[in-house]
């Protein structure tokens, strides 16, 4: 008897959940709980139960009846509350209607990513003006006047006697003038050089400058920091190599290449130990403090990272390009 009641309860439960509209539910209710329903006919069989089990069977009958009544009434409420579900079907493949996502410019994304890597290594992000003076752009950086070294720093001059910085190294000087070591900074920003524009050159581009000055900073630290950067930016299997190079503001100086399977060694940044003359120009004793500096082109990084082939694409602002980031 008790087993029969349990079986009936399960069958009823199944039909209740499957009932998709009030009519189906109603007929199920009649079928199970109606005056001539299955429950009534089953409960009539109580007389067949041995007297010592009657009490238990009676309790079970009451429990199942209450349980089914509750299930029916709850399901009824649900079906009545959503009449649409009967007539309208939901098409979940219709597009969502929230506004389309915006995007950060790929160069901003790269700057953010690189800034995050370096802030993780203890560097602070700072900025400096784009309109600069000869002093910050050249003199303080040990770039001699009338020297071919200036050829790589062709510069836009303004009517007011100032110039547009041709490198973010200017920020090194501005920071060191105000803050004495220890210091670790990076400075992202725009720089300008009157270059003819083509697929890899632009008269305006972005650089990220890095600088660390403290007691006991050596080339090994520079190597460690840049290697760590390369691993985080290009992946943990990134290979880099250092090549000697010349920059007026660092000594020794190096260019750093990253290895690409398809293109071989690619130059990605310039670096070196801060030139003693630069430290002297900001009144930091080069005997007591040493430091390293590095600078990288953001466009180049973005081109390598995202496979962009033409630098001009960054400044065209084509939505079909921007939306991909």
């Amino acid at each position, binding site marked *: 008897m008790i087993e029969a009641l349990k079986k009936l309860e399960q069958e009823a439960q199944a039909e209740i959940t499957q009932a998709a509209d009030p009519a189906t539910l109603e007929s199920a209710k009649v079928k199970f709980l109606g005056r001539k329903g299955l429950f009534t006919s089953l409960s009539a069989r109580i007389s067949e139960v041995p007297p010592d089990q009657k009490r238990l069977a009676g309790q079970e009958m009451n429990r199942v009846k209450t349980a089914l009544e509750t299930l029916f009434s709850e399901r009824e409420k649900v079906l009545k509350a959503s009449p649409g579900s009967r007539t309208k079907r939901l098409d979940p493949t219709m597009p969502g*209607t929230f506004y389309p*996502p*915006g*995007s*950060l*410019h790929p*160069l*901003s994304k790269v700057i*953010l990513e690189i*800034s995050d890597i370096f802030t993780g290594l*203890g560097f*602070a*992000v*700072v*900025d400096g*003006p*784009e*309109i600069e003076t000869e002093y910050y752009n050249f003199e303080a950086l040990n770039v001699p006047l*009338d*020297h*071919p070294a200036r050829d790589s720093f062709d510069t*836009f001059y*303004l*009517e007011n006697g100032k110039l*547009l910085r041709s490198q973010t190294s200017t920020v090194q000087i501005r*920071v060191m003038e105000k*803050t004495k070591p*220890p*210091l*670790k900074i990076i400075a992202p920003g*725009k720089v*300008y050089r*009157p270059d*003819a524009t083509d697929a890899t050159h632009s*008269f305006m581009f972005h650089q990220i400058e890095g600088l660390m000055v403290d007691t*006991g*900073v*050596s*080339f*090994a630290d520079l*190597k460690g*920091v840049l*290697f*760590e950067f390369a691993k985080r930016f290009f992946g943990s299997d990134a290979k880099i190599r250092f*090549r*000697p*190079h010349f920059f007026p503001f660092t*000594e*020794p*100086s190096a*260019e750093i290449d990253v290895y690409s399977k398809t293109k071989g060694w690619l130059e990605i940044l310039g670096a070196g*130990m801060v*030139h003693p003359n630069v430290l002297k120009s900001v009144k930091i004793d080069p005997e007591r403090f*040493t430091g390293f500096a590095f600078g990288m082109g953001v466009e180049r990084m973005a081109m390598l990272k995202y496979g962009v082939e033409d630098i001009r694409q*960054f*400044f065209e*602002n*084509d*939505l079909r390009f*921007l939306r991909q980031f």
Partner: protein
Amino acid sequence: MKLPVSWLKKYIQGTLPPPERLAELLTLSGTAVDRIEKTGAEAVLDIEVTTNRPDCLSILGLAREFSALSGSKVVLPKISSLKNKKSNAFRIQVLDKKGCPFYTARLMENVHIASTPEETARLVSLAGARPINNVVDATNFVLFETGQPLHAFDADKIEGRVLIVRRAHPGEKFLGIDGSEHTLDKETLVIADASKPIAIAGVMGGKLTEITSQTKNVLLESAYFDPAVVRRAAKRYKISTESSYRFERGVDVEKVEQASARVRDLILEWAGGSENGFLAVGSDRVKKKSIVLRESRIEALLGMKVSLKRASQILNRLGFSTRSSGKDKLLVSTWNARRDVTQEADLMEEILRIEGFEKIPASIPTTRHTGAVLQNPKTVAITGLKKQAAAMGFNEIISYSLLPKKALEDSGLSLECAQRVINAPSAEQEYFRPSLLPGMLQAVSFNLNRKAQAIRFFEVGNCCGREGKEETHFAAALSGYFEENWLRKSPSTLSDLKGASEHWLRFLNFYGPEAGNLSQVSADVLTRWDIQQDVFYFECSLDRVLDVPPQAHFRVKPVPKFPFVRRDIAFVVSDEVKVGSLEETIRKSASSALAEVRLFDQFMGKNIPQGKRSLAFALFYQKEDGTFTEDEIRALQDRVGAALKENYHVEFR
């Protein structure tokens, strides 16, 4: 600099590695090989020499580099005699000792002009010079071999048998050996004969005195010219020659005479004739200096140990003479060919680049934090703002800061606000922008032309404010659809951009006073940018926005214990009355019980008289200590109604 490998081989004792390996060795020690060109058995390395290393602009200089790297010896070419006999067949006057500290001329007589031996012609041409004849090629051969530029004049075409090194007379004409004509200015250093310039010093010889097949007697110039003077002339007349390239980087004055003797030997060998005298004016002596190199400093700066023994081996092979001073110091004598080396840090680089960067271990430096806060609050705020704008559905653009005049004019901007660039190579880059508007319009126009439906752009960039002061601006634009999907479609409006701008300013904690401009771009401007639909634009100076001192420390307000009561009020009013004034009247008259007032509808048109609009406001009443009675609310609403009627003659609906 082009390096034919077989030419290098002439000066190296022992064998050379294969060209690829040679290229790698040179690259990793500072003379970067861009390319290897192979023709037959010959390989030519194309080398990028940095401006501080003029010594590497010669085959012998590169041989020295290879020697330092490999330990192989350099075999210098033999020069028959450096003894010179004076001559009075010619006179030299150096009128500008600063521009020309040392000048020599050598007279070679009765030479036989012919073509150069085949092997020499081949090498000279691989190095980048066109073979011409045995005399000119001898000068070019030695130029490539030693890095010292030389020039050969036809002695019989020099008027007055005199060479004068002087500045040009303004307006003086010069006919270059390449046929180009130049009008000289008074800054230009020239070599002149009795009547006219016959060479621009260090840059180019003249057509009128060039060596021809008829030349019998040759006057051979070898000199040292001031790098800045040569550089200026090369730039001024836009002539870059193998000669000017080397002079402007600095040649080795101590090798001037030697190079001349070397050319003499080659001319005697290839063209015969005889030497008839040598003249020199000025001095080729350079003062030597000693640099102290400390063993301890090597480790401190490079992060690896290099013994003084090894350091001195490297420096000796590179041509520096050294002697030890005590146990832990080396005295290194400066050397004229390497004028880039003037202090200890320079010696470090020499040691490092020969020893190899790969030997330095990589270490992560410890960070010592200072009291000073370096992190720039502006940078932090801008990063946050950019992320916020992108999350709100705006696409970031980056436009050029330098703009043509037309872009400023077409955007209705005054040229006076912009900073003019005085040396822009193109009119496209003539002005530093005073506003982000032109760049924004450019981007809008570009994308509309490519059938963009909905434009939401923002940009953060620097502009020059009044008086040329640089400021960081933020700009945003809306055009086309604001929403466009199967459920809703609505065009962008000024109110949409106003709402967005309010978000941004609140994000930056800015609550006034004036921050920037919000506007609908004028039809006139749009026409000039060929834009045929409405564009809404917002721009503000972030320096001004971020300059506002922060509000008192933020404290949370208690959440109301009792629910608010909402009552709507709708009326018709003249469309000259601003919603802001109406809100103010409502707020004032309802007293502090009014928690919020919000416009929720505007209607114009059918059933509303011309010049009027119907507005509907929702008023939210709130008490801290209980609920309102119906009478209290009615009284408040009546007061609001009366005030509106009195002030603005509204008609309730």
